[in-house]
């Protein structure tokens, strides 16, 4: 059913730390592996060994270059590179759900996960049109819409050890830049992290109210700030002889 629940018991989602993501694509491929073998149709690849390889991925890592503006404190700021993983943000007001004509797309009442019931999906693609984030990809082999399930078949899976009941991307992330939890609970670790680090919505003006949050990169290149109060080192000597004198005096004191 494609009307959105008025509220969900929990708001499970991801917190992605842009300060820490090194852009290694581990989450991308782990996701591909788990979701090829599990929930729904496999994520297929077309022309995998040919001129135009193209497959279905539910999580992709972009890279952006950001050029800060010059300031008096930093007249020549260096450009920065930010790695940017992106998958379904499991929006509270998920436009992809309400546009679905068949009810295949839905948002779960118990945890807010947005899913596609593949047996009802006609592959019209409208949900992907409605998503501003590019979170949905039509599988070319299966003709159904694929998207991040937040590993709904892992996070409650009794066949997995408890510590593994997290999305595959979170479990695999080497830098620990991905966090999973209930963003509806202000006392959860992820909510605290969002509060501490000024977590942000992507495209807030789209009105989707994404559950997933992004932690912005911490300020960079602060050593370059002209007015920073970091003291420079005071010399004890300017040439070897003076240094040896200092050395003797210091050793005496030791």
């Amino acid at each position, binding site marked *: 059913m*494609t009307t959105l629940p008025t509220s969900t018991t929990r708001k499970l989602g991801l917190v992605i730390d842009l300060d820490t993501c090194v852009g290694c694509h581990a989450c*991308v491929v782990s996701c591909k592996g788990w979701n090829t073998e599990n929930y729904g149709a496999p994520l297929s690849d077309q022309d995998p060994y040919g001129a135009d390889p193209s497959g279905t991925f539910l999580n992709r890592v972009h890279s*952006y270059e950001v050029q800060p503006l010059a300031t008096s404190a930093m007249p020549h700021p260096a450009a920065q590179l930010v790695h940017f993983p992106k998958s379904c943000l499991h929006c509270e007001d998920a436009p992809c759900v309400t546009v679905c*004509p068949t009810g295949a797309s839905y948002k779960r009442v118990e945890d807010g996960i947005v899913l596609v019931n593949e047996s009802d999906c006609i592959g019209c693609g409208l949900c992907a049109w409605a998503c501003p*984030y590019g979170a949905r990809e039509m599988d070319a082999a299966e003709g159904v819409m694929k998207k991040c399930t937040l590993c709904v078949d892992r996070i409650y899976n009794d066949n997995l050890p408890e510590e593994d009941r997290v999305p595959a991307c979170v479990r695999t992330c080497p830098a620990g830049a991905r966090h999973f939890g209930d963003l509806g609970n202000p006392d959860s670790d992820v909510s605290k992290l969002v509060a501490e680090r000024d977590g942000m919505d992507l495209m807030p003006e789209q009105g989707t109210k994404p559950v997933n949050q992004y932690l912005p990169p911490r300020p960079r290149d602060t050593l370059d700030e002209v007015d920073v109060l970091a003291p420079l080192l005071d010399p004890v000597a300017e040439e070897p002889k003076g240094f040896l004198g200092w050395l003797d005096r210091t050793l005496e004191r030791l």
Partner: protein
Amino acid sequence: MHPARSVIAFTTLSGAGFGVLFWLGLGLPDVTGWVAFAFFAVAYALAAGGLLASTFHLGHPERAWKAFSQWRSSWLSREGVASVAALVVMGVYGAALVFLDTRIAPLGWLGAALALATVYTTSMIYAQMRTVPRWKTPLTPVLFIAVSLAGGALLAGQVTAAMALLAVAGLVQVLWWMRGDGALAASGTDMATATGLGGIGHVRAFAPPHTGSNYLLREFVFVVGRKHAAKLRMIALALGYALPLVLLALPFSHAAAALAAISHLVGIAVSRWLFFAEAEHVVGLYYGAR
């Protein structure tokens, strides 16, 4: 957006078809018997043919019937319901005209309303998309309805109405384009909000997540050259609106009328190609497109 042939054909043809049905429902022209049959055949061929074409882009057309279920929230579902309702009502109405030589006027009015509603639901599929600022405007349903009514009038032989509506539709089209060209910039969505990095400085896409293509790029990132688009707009205006107007202004001939209808449909098809091809989906921002 990728200008998919199936969707261009669908919106062009079914828009015209439901337009004809609208006029037929109002009893314009007031025809019965085999003449009515001919008009209804054209209308159904366009409307149903367009609908059929739209199923070609489905991954699972055999499940298309499921699309009637979500009319509470989904414009696509509503379109399905409205189109079937329009076709059924107009079918009964048309059958009465053709076979019973009887015009059940209230049924016709209902059918006309449903035909118009169908066009409206189609337009709302696009007009609801916040992700495509060029589409997200009340002008989109106005345009779709104006074009549908004009095309319907043209095909239904309502010369005066057609001339007036073609002029109106042409004007709406121009307004729609003018507004559309600034829509993305006015939407407030840009790379800064897409990435949340705008507070640091100017954001530029450095490397895409994959060096190859993917569904998103194929479906949503279609770049049409500015000069090319301007040329196509002129063609769309000329064929879709101006030429039919000129032809209708000439003394009536079946050849001129047929040419006007064909010219209009070709022009509208070109404008619909532009409707998709020029539409900037905000997901393109993640790829640094536009």
